[in-house]
Structure formats: structure tokens, C-alpha cells
């Protein structure tokens, strides 16, 4: 059974108040106030002096559980929202793998589910490991992105992105945290360029996310009452407040504390919120928790993964 053996997160130290981004992003005063009042966004983390290569390398270097096990890593999967991030033929993912003794691993990137690609990467890692003839083979799932364009900095009226990265060691046989269920709906009709209207996407966003959350819970043989925590995507606070009303789930059990200070870190939110839950003593052995993500861009993806700690 797919298990998350260890998770490491890199969050840049530099915090930038969202007011400082108003000029560069062309935000009006009311848009900034909306982000603070309802979206719960106060500041974002940026690391202008560090490249994507640096971000990934720092996240992997922080994964102490990997040390000495590099030769067991058969797969490295980068779950990423942005399809293109460096000029050809640069490849920071492959460079980092070579530098850190992972050059032998089958290494690739998935971007097809935008910000939900991190969960897709975990699911793929589990499937590859399940078919691997070596029983104790491992996979490394990475996330990490730079906010290098306006599109990579801002989801208008919805969220502001931060930079950051994570590294997650996945095994097929680990004791924890075990993946019990994965539900994923891909909605091509919400393609950002040729799809349905933004208004329809906004209207169906919460019901669609609620649907995969309920399905993952049900597939694990559980009810929402059994779920100790939800680790959200950090798109904003108001979305989760309203989603919780729809789910009849207490918003106090959704780990939203990183939204105000870290913004939305593409595919890394799930892993950062996991570390926050762990370090805050919010998860105990045997607890069930749910990780949720939404990707939008070339179609929309709604994902939920259910784990037991």
C-alpha cells in the first residue's frame, strides 16, 4: 500500500506583504482589501535570488530520511503546475537528481493537472512502486515552482502564489502515512482558454471539490466524522469556509494557518500543511486525514486523497 515515508518542505524566509505586490500585479486598492478580508491572504513568500534548481535542491537536502537510501530510489516525479519553467535545454530536475546521487532514477515531470499534479505524482509513484520487482524500491515526489510571470503570481480575484518546494519519500510498503483512497475528477469543460465561462467554474468549484472529498472518504469505508483533519490547497480561506458549510465539516479542522503567511504554493500546499499538522501535534497515530487539491488551467482537476497516519 502506497505510503508517505517522510516529507520535507522548503519555504523562503522572505515575506512580502500583498500591498507591495499591488503595483507590479496591477491590483486595485479594493482587490488588495478583498484578499486580506475574505481570502485571508496577508503576505507571500518569495526568493528572488534562488532558482528553481535551488528550491528543489534545498527541499531534497532537507529530507534526512533519504540519506543513505538514494540507490533505492527508482523514480523521481516532479508534480508541477506550470508546463514550461526553464529555457530548453536546461533541466533543473535532472541536474538536482545527478547532484544528489539520484541520477540513476527514472525521472520525469507531470503538469497535466496543474496544482493538483502533486497528488497525481504521489498516485503515480504508488502505482510504479507496486509494479516494481524490487520490493523495497522508493520514489521521490518533488514539488516546487518560481513565480516568474504575472500568471504565475496571481489568480485574479482568487489567490496569490508563493514560491516554495517540497520533497516526499514514497514507498509501497511503508508503515505510514498510508494512502487509503484517491478520488480525482478531470473536467475538460473548464479549460481556461476554450472552456466554459469563469462564472460556471466558480459556481461548480465547491460542489465538484466536495464530491471528490466525499468519494475518497467513502471509498476508504469512512465518513467525514472519521476525518481528523483536512489538509487543503491554500487557494484562500473563504473558499474553504464555504466548502465546509457544504460538507457539514468543521472549518476548525481544516489546516488553514499557512494561507495568511505563505499564500498558495502551487502543488506544495499539501506537503507544507502536512508538516504544519505534524509539527503542531495535530495528527496522532491512526488518525485519518484528507488532502485536497484543485488544478485549473488546461481543464480543471479536483482531487482528494485519504491517508491514515
Amino acid at each position, binding site marked *: 500500500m502506497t505510503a508517505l515515508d517522510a516529507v520535507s518542505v522548503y519555504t523562503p524566509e522572505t515575506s512580502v506583504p500583498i500591498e507591495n505586490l499591488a503595483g507590479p500585479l496591477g491590483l486595485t486598492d*479594493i482587490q488588495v*482589501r*478583498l484578499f486580506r*478580508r*475574505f481570502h485571508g491572504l496577508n503576505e507571500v513568500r518569495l526568493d528572488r535570488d534562488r532558482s528553481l534548481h535551488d528550491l528543489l535542491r534545498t527541499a531534497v537536502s532537507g529530507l534526512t530520511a533519504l540519506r543513505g537510501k538514494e540507490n533505492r530510489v527508482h523514480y523521481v516525479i516532479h508534480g508541477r503546475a506550470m508546463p514550461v519553467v526553464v529555457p530548453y535545454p536546461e533541466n533543473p530536475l535532472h541536474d538536482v537528481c545527478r547532484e544528489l546521487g539520484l541520477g540513476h532514477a527514472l525521472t520525469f515531470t507531470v503538469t497535466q493537472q496543474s496544482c493538483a499534479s502533486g497528488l497525481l505524482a504521489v498516485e503515480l509513484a504508488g502505482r510504479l512502486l507496486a509494479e516494481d520487482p524490487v520490493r523495497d524500491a522508493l520514489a521521490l515526489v518533488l514539488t516546487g515552482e518560481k513565480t516568474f510571470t504575472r500568471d504565475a503570481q496571481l489568480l*485574479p*480575484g*482568487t489567490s496569490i502564489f508563493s514560491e516554495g518546494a517540497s520533497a516526499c519519500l514514497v514507498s509501497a510498503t511503508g508503515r505510514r502515512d498510508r494512502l487509503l483512497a484517491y478520488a480525482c475528477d478531470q473536467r475538460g469543460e473548464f479549460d481556461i482558454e476554450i472552456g466554459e465561462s*469563469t*462564472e460556471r467554474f*466558480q*459556481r461548480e468549484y465547491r460542489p465538484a471539490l466536495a464530491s471528490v472529498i466525499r468519494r475518497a472518504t467513502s471509498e476508504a469505508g469512512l465518513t467525514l466524522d472519521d476525518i481528523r483533519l483536512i489538509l487543503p490547497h491554500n487557494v484562500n480561506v*473563504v473558499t474553504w*469556509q*464555504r466548502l*465546509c*458549510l457544504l460538507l*457539514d465539516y*468543521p*472549518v476548525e479542522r481544516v489546516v488553514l494557518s499557512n494561507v495568511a503567511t505563505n499564500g498558495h504554493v502551487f502543488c506544495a500546499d499539501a506537503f507544507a500543511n502536512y508538516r504544519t499538522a505534524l509539527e503542531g501535534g495535530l495528527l496522532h497515530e491512526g488518525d485519518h486525514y484528507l488532502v485536497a487539491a484543485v488544478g485549473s488551467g488546461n481543464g480543471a482537476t479536483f482531487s482528494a486523497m485519504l491517508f491514515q497516519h
Partner: protein
Amino acid sequence: MAAPEAEIDVELRERAVDAIAALLHRLLKREEPITEDMLMAEQLGLSSSLGLELLLEVEEQLRIQIDVETMDPERTRTVGELATFVAGHGRPW
């Protein structure tokens, strides 16, 4: 989890109806009359992001803070329903 029932301040509700209607006229660039029974999304075309802008401006005009945590969009679909919610769940600054 439904929003808890709250006592309605009738005077505040009236001011909320007026403020919401005036703001909808401005935000949606609409000249036709707006009445309490109108569905804001379906009939008037209010998106959820413009809906938040509407709430922010209502808060500022009425000098209250609305308890948005308990606000169920399904129960605040008309101008009148939103005004009732605002009157029952708005705390003075």
C-alpha cells in the same frame, strides 16, 4: 451546518437592502430596478468574486463586520436573503 438563527435588526436590514441594491447597480452596471426577490447570481449575473466585493463594500458602508464563516451561499441567493443575513450576522466596528 446551518448558520445559527440570529435576531434581526429591522432598521439595519432596511439599510442593507438599500446598500446592496445600490452596489449591485454600480458593480453590474445595471440601470433597471433591483428588487428584494431577485436572485443575484442567476438573474443579475453576479459572480462569486464580485459577490465578495459586494460584501466588502456593504461592510464598509454599514460599518459592520459580517460573520462570513457562517454564510451559506445557498441561503443568501436573493437580495432580501442577503440583507437578512447581514442584519443578523453583522457586528458593529
